[in-house]
């Protein structure tokens, strides 16, 4: 009997010891981030200091591979605990069962100022009504101008209409020999022409994907709308004011475009604020003490139309995460005011309350003016066509038209046929 008691005591001590040790053991979660490490390193270190029992391993991957890699891993029970994703991917990822519904966390342990404070909530809400992502940053695009080149071309006002934009771009090229509106016209499945085409359509009160009153989805444009948009952007290529080499550029942050703006070889660009900040920084470093010859402004729009997107990133938690509580704690911390104020300063937060506190400053004024004329992707993201397919079809068909591979009419027909296949 004594032996039995002793054995029981030893076993109990062992169990208690194990439990105690387990609770003291640090939990390791992985965070997959798709931009540069230095942007979030400070925030991660601060989180680990505040939460010594949670270690965060940072993984990095390029944006182009981020979505596919995460989906592949999640399908076989792997992947990072927390992932940095584009806002428009969240609904698809939720439907694929790759991400965890966050409703319980949001209800029991909500972020400061509540979930209602976040922009782009429609893109966080899955088709089953659950929330699958926490909006993290916003990167509404706007137009950026080299004011010195505009002045050299005799332009005093920033353009307010698409026609003015075209005329000014042409004038810069003809009068200074520099590129006018140098936009990335590449054909890879990136956001290059996709964004510009949609901004153009939205500003004219039209949209590519619409949700009908009965809940079904349809193409909201006529072929002539697509042809008109293709013809508009083709003028820049044919006129030479957007260099033909930009047919090989597929991102706003293409080095050739950034370099051309920094060195004054290009007068106009379209981009998100973090790319613009990089350009300002590069200019200041190359020209210390000089005044900054840059200004930003909204894309052309009418009083009641939008001309840019409330785009941005969200944080999602992997459905396979073994430490969902720690992952949520980290996610919530990354969306806090302290992170945006002290560490992650290249992006704007997705909370309305935090956005209001930001002093955009003169060069970024145009981005602030763009916000009221920006919209979320709405039906584009909740509709039946994968957003990547929409990007690919649009940029490919625009690429074909802009490069002269086919006529704008044929390219528009192809765009309709390919997107039409995606509509049930």
């Amino acid at each position, binding site marked *: 009997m004594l032996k039995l008691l002793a054995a029981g005591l030893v076993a109990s001590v062992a169990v208690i010891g194990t439990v105690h040790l387990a609770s003291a053991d640090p939990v390791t979660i992985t965070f997959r981030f798709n931009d540069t490490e230095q942007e979030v390193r400070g925030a991660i270190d601060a989180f680990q200091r505040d939460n010594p029992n949670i270690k965060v391993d940072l993984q990095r991957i390029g944006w182009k591979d981020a979505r596919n890699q995460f989906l592949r891993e999640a399908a076989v029970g792997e992947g990072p605990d927390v992932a940095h994703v584009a806002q428009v991917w969240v609904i698809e990822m939720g439907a694929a069962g790759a991400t965890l519904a966050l409703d319980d966390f949001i209800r029991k342990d909500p972020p400061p100022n509540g979930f209602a404070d976040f922009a782009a909530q429609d893109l966080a809400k899955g088709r089953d009504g659950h929330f699958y992502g926490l909006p993290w940053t916003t990167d509404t695009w706007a137009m950026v101008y080299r004011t010195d080149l505009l002045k050299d071309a005799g332009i005093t006002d920033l353009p307010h209409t698409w026609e003015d934009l075209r005329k000014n771009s042409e004038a810069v090229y003809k009068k200074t020999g520099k590129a006018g509106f140098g936009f990335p016209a590449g054909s890879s499945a990136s956001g290059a022409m996709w964004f510009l085409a949609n901004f153009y359509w939205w500003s004219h009160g039209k949209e590519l994907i619409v949700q009908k009153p009965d809940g079904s989805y349809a193409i909201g444009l006529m072929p002539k709308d697509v042809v008109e948009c293709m013809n508009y952007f083709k003028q820049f290529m044919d006129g030479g004011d957007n260099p033909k080499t930009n047919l090989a550029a*597929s991102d706003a942050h293409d080095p050739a475009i950034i370099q051309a703006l920094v060195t004054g070889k290009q007068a106009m660009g379209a981009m998100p604020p973090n790319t613009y900040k990089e350009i300002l920084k590069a200019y200041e470093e190359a020209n210390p003490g000089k005044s900054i010859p840059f200004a930003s402004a909204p894309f052309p729009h009418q009083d009641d139309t939008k001309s840019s997107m409330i785009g941005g990133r969200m944080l999602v938690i992997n459905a396979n995460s073994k430490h969902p509580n720690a992952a949520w704690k980290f996610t919530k911390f990354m969306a806090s005011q302290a992170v945006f104020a002290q560490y992650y300063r290249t992006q704007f937060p997705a909370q309305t309350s935090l956005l209001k506190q930001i002093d955009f400053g003169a060069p970024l004024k145009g981005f602030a003016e763009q916000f009221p004329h920006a919209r979320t992707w709405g039906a584009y993201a909740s509709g039946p066509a*994968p957003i*990547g397919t929409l990007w690919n079809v649009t940029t*490919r068909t625009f690429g074909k038209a*802009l490069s002269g*591979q086919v006529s704008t009419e044929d390219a528009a027909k192809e765009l309709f046929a390919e997107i039409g296949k995606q509509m049930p």
Partner: protein
Amino acid sequence: MRDRLFITTMLLPAVVLLVLFYGYPIFDNLRISFTDLSLLGMKKGGNWVGLANYRELLHRGDFSHILFNTLIWLTATSVLLRLLIGLGIAVLLNTRALKTLRLASVARFALLVPWATPPIVAVVIWRFLLERNGFVNDALMGLNIISQPIAFLADMRTVWPSIVTIMLWNTVPLIALSLLSNLQTVPEEYYEAAELDGATNWQMFRFVTLPFLMPAILVLGLMSVFWSFNNFVYVWLATGAGPGTFTNVLATEVYLKAFVDFRLGYSSAIGMVMAVVMGAFGILYLRLVAHRQLEETL
């Protein structure tokens, strides 16, 4: 009988391993190609659609364009040029003049640099060289050959020659060095005898050097066809299959369908078509060309 059993038993593990290693992925890819499996539906799996993916592929309006790009530009042009330039460099490096000037070793070492450069790095380097303010445009403008920069990787007139140039830069050294090592095995007496018979340089090359090199050329040619036909890196990194879809090839189409449109089933069908084309080429090549040439040489 016992010997046969023993040999079979000894071979069995290797055969099983090969079947598992090569056979299973092929079989699984074939199975997926008959489904509508999506990257977003991997947990659920795909539904059986029979030959629908194959029918769609073969009836696509741009299938012939993609096939033409793959067969003519990516494969035939690059392989022929690779063999011709590689042979030329090998012969040059084997000349007495180069050896006398002690430049052969330097040249061989220089050839190793592009060969040792990973394809991804090679493409990045060439993208810089070919861009608007890159070295090539600067040089051509400096020499007054052109007045405006050429959009090498975006202009339909220059994009394929540019991609092929990048491929050649990266892969010709392997061909050249392989042929050079074969050239060095040709007995000197053959040339001496030919010289005594009054053969010209061209005749010596045609009737002495080339027959000796033919087996190596055939093997390198066959390997090059497989490398080129299946290649994804050069086109994808250089142009992303653009402008538009102008440089789209089967390998980039596989990627686009699988990882942009999420259609793994359809993408697998393209992969199977590629495997069948290459399999047919391999069999035809071995039966009609390589077998006869090797027999003649031996």
